[in-house]
């Protein structure tokens, strides 16, 4: 089945996408790295690597480790900085590719400033605020782990931009529904979830953590059911659209997130293993729809049946 008769278009937080497949921040570089493998116009768009005000270097190695059906990473959000992104990375992309810029900072003012600098840049269709970074003033707790800090953050970035604003939530919380409602209340246009799950792996020979940083973020197929549960819970808690993320490896995985209430999805770790994965998933969703008599991909959103 080719899926050619299916209407794959969706609208996420006011951003028109040709299909619901985006790629997750930090797993897709600045887009051009995938040019040998994938025509970026085959997918809905991509979320670029998180940007800070100034260029930032990552952690010393080892930065990655493997776990069953998963990997851990502690890169520490290495990036070229907002200026180089706007000046060098964006112009290198083909036209009509939807680009969502990801933003983070170590304090709220930095987030707001990066958002300001990206607002009005013609190629930037929307912003995704990465709320999973440690908040220095709160002793290293993630912005997205404390509802008051998260509210302050979303309020500040909302004032800084009129672009469509997605907030990427941390899974390392007791109630994802509460965090989702906080973002909605402060004016977020949509939510992306989940970010990597905080994790630790140990080498029994050296008796040290495998990662130089100690803790890392777990991603890959192992976290998919956790992510699916959180998307389902968040979708029931808010009316703003949700972009589902977490271990999506094929079209069936993606359809599960749509059924649980995600309007669009992001492919993350799978891009590493198979740089054509996002394109194959986009085609596969359309084929699924055709095979199941679904005319519009948007009709799958939230269509989970109960027992």
């Amino acid at each position: 089945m080719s899926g050619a008769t299916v209407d794959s278009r969706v609208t996420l937080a006011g951003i028109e996408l040709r299909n619901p497949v985006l790629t997750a921040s930090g797993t897709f570089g600045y887009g051009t790295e995938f040019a040998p493998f994938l025509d970026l116009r085959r997918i809905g768009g991509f979320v670029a690597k998180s940007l800070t005000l100034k260029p930032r270097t990552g952690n010393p190695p080892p930065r990655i480790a493997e776990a069953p059906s998963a990997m851990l990473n502690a890169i520490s959000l290495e990036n070229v900085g907002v200026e180089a992104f706007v000046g060098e990375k964006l112009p290198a992309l083909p036209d009509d590719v939807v680009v969502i810029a990801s933003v983070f900072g170590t304090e709220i003012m930095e987030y707001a400033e990066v958002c300001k600098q990206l607002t009005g840049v013609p190629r930037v269709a929307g912003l995704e605020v990465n709320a999973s970074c440690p908040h220095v003033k709160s002793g290293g707790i993630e912005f997205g782990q404390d509802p008051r800090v998260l509210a302050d953050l979303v309020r500040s970035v909302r004032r800084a931009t009129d672009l469509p604003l997605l907030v990427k939530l941390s899974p390392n919380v007791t109630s994802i529904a509460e965090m989702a409602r906080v973002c909605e209340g402060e004016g977020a246009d949509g939510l992306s979830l989940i970010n990597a799950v905080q994790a630790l792996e140990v080498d029994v020979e050296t008796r040290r953590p495998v990662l130089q940083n100690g803790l890392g973020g777990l991603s890959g197929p192992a976290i998919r059911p956790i992510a699916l549960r959180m998307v389902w819970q968040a979708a029931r808690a808010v009316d703003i659209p949700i972009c589902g993320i977490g271990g999506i490896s094929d079209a069936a995985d993606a359809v599960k997130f749509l059924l649980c209430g995600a309007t669009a999805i992001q492919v993350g770790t799978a891009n590493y293993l198979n740089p054509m994965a996002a394109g194959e998933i986009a085609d596969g969703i359309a084929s699924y729809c055709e095979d199941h008599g679904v005319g519009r991909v948007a009709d799958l959103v939230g269509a989970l049946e109960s027992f």
Partner: protein
Amino acid sequence: MSQPSADTDARSLPVRVDAEVLENRDEGGGNHHLCLRVPDWPGSAPGQFVMLSAGARSAVERTDPLLPRPMAVYRQSGSVVEVLYKVTGRGTALLAQVRPGQRVRTVGPLGCAFLRPDAAKPAILVGGGTGIASLHELAAQCAEAIEVTVLLGARTAEELMARDDFAALPVELRIATDDGSEGHPGVVTELLEEMLAEGGAPGVYACGPTPMMRRCAELARAAGARCQVSLENHMACGFGVCLGCAAPLAEGGFALVCTEGPVFDAARVAWETLP
């Protein structure tokens, strides 16, 4: 050509294909030899590598272990690409079970190649353990133009990789084994030290365990010889996006082994902090 020049401009764009296994042989001593037919293989330059996913060979994809493994291109001819590996963990154990006719997802060629050797100077290639696999294409290419000596090291004669293939090249081949079961009894860098003492300002090209490459770098620097090393590292993608394979640089900061390497000028590497 009097100056070394980069091959980066001539680099082929990588492909992602499900390669067909033609042969996957246990050669004894823990060594395995994999031959793949890679459709649309654009050709690689000496020192480049491929990412192989042994789990992606059937309709239901295996996700544990999740990550593909970087492997040097040992030899290539047309669309046939050969890889040498040792079984060191679950990923390579899985790779060793793959049978002819099955598929292995292959992404490549990736990375920067060795800089072409200076035509006026002899070349010394130093390989240890599985690092030997990175040097065969370079040895074959260099031997067409210049005098090449290949120094290979292993723990034992049985564990030594690819001896016969190197012996078939028009190069001078010298072996070192830790247990003295073949060639020089001791480490391969002792052979390099001897050769550098003879002078002649050769170019040194090394791939092997970190202590071996570090020693090659020290010896070459002391002898005023240029040394290129091919680093190994864990990586999730192989093409510059996971940022997992950072290697520390002497000038400060990090370089990605996958896209800025795997071949580096040995003087650029911060050997004391390289894991």
